[in-house]
């Protein structure tokens, strides 16, 4: 299976990446090559195989709900590009 320039545009939009027109071709080529390589997984019969999401299974880990010292509002905002009223500020979304 190959990857077209339109595929790259579609995936890039999902990934919130802007790929300029002149780079679509090279990403299509390199992504296509990798997708072709991973096609080999289709050879295997995995019908009755359970998926592994973690190699060392640890179940839901619970701990007592106790308040502990953490970052102050000021510390958490110390890297914000823009902050206002103790919050992160982002560009206007809704007019």
């Amino acid at each position, binding site marked *: 299976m190959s990857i077209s320039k339109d595929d790259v545009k579609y995936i890039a939009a*999902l990934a919130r990446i802007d790929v300029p027109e002149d780079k679509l071709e090279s990403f299509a080529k390199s992504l296509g090559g990798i997708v072709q390589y991973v096609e080999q997984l289709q050879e295997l019969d995995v019908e009755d195989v359970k998926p592994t999401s973690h190699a*060392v299974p640890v179940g839901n880990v619970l701990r007592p709900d106790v308040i502990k010292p953490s970052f102050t509002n000021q510390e958490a905002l110390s890297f914000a590009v823009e902050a206002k009223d103790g919050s992160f500020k982002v560009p206007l979304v809704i007019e």
Partner: protein
Amino acid sequence: MSLHQLTAHALLDILKSRQATPREAYEAVLERIKAVDPKVKAYIHLAHQEPDFSRELLFPIPIAIKDNLCTKSEEITCASRILKGFKSPYDAGVIERVKKSGGAILGIVNMDEFAFGSSCETSCYGSTFNPWDLKCVPGGSSGGSAAAVAADETIWALGSDTGGSIRQPASFCGIVGLKPTYGRVSRYGLIAFASSLDQIGPLTKDVRDCALMMNIISGYDERDSTSVNEPVPDYTKALVNDVRGLKIGIPKEAFVDGLNPEVRRSVEEALNLLKKLGAVIKEVSLPHTPYAVATYYIVATAEASSNLARFDGVRFGLRVQPDKVRKNALLDMYEETRSKGFGDEAKRRIMLGTYALSSGYYDAYYLRGQKVRTLIKNDLDEVFKDCDVIMTPTSPTVSFKVGEKLSDPLSMYLSDIYTIPANLAGIPAISIPCGFSQSGLPIGMQLMGKAFDEEMLLRVSYTYEQNTEWHLKKPNL
């Protein structure tokens, strides 16, 4: 020997007998960095804070830290433009442990951007170079850590390993590198690449140092929900020079086409030596390991695409707003920030992972990848019923020239063909030096062990090391 050339355990002996102070050792290594780092380029920056030498602590050893381990007040960027300027407000679990033991942080070392690479070339700061041949790569992604150790620009270093990122550079630079069992070392404060595969581990000059570092960094941490609450042994007790009766499995799939003949010869010679020392060698089969790289590039990129979604210009790091409105102001900011902030390989992997998880492809790629992961894990479990360790080369080749594989991502990915299975299965694996190529580049061999049996890896590695001298060789810089 000068102080900077010492192993941690040799330096500890000297400090204990008061022949030198911790500050003298630290300054000796800083001098070495000044002298050779302009050539090697292992360091991104030196530590802003000088260590506290006023307290008497157990391990006042100079150490280098990979650029993805949060270290308080230091700029930590994963070698990416998107995190430039991010000064960590806290210490990772391992950094807390290192500092508590007395560890003297020298600085932050280079890596592939977000650990996406096997050569240290995708760093936004530029390449690090292999101390054995400055035209060659140090391996990756923990290339800065490995090069710094090999060049005596640190006594030891911390790295992280998602598909071979500790072991492959250790092999390329002629040092020891261990990826511990998944859950053995806390990932709290490690900037995540693929959360089900990432593990922090030591890069050291010999096997004894590897055991010492494991004593410092191992153990449960409730802040990492995948941390495993198992007792931590004294790893130095595993340093026994005896492999008699131990069973070493040799997977027949490992010694096939594509394996460099010099690497093959060195690993076979190492095998013969272990046999002479009393180990029992057994040919085994891991029939699904040829699918490991394909499985990895589905599972790891899917996890990465999700983990890297947090770099969006909102809370930290870079933010870029395009001049013109394209979609809407917020969406434009996300896209422009990520486009300017990530390098090409990061973009490629994020897009690949996004594709594998996208509607219509999830079952064919991601779910199938997770199922093949089970098959690979089952293969290893089966072999470990009758073997103490499994031995392979660490990488199919020695180090390659800077630039050689950069334009061909797939050939770069195949550099990790032997190291990936251990990450997929969560088991520990070590790389130790076992020879040199005609061109003078180091060769490494890999030992994989059962989950939480790092001690067996250390024992076999230590025995091999005690009977060889590869680990004593130093590059001319």
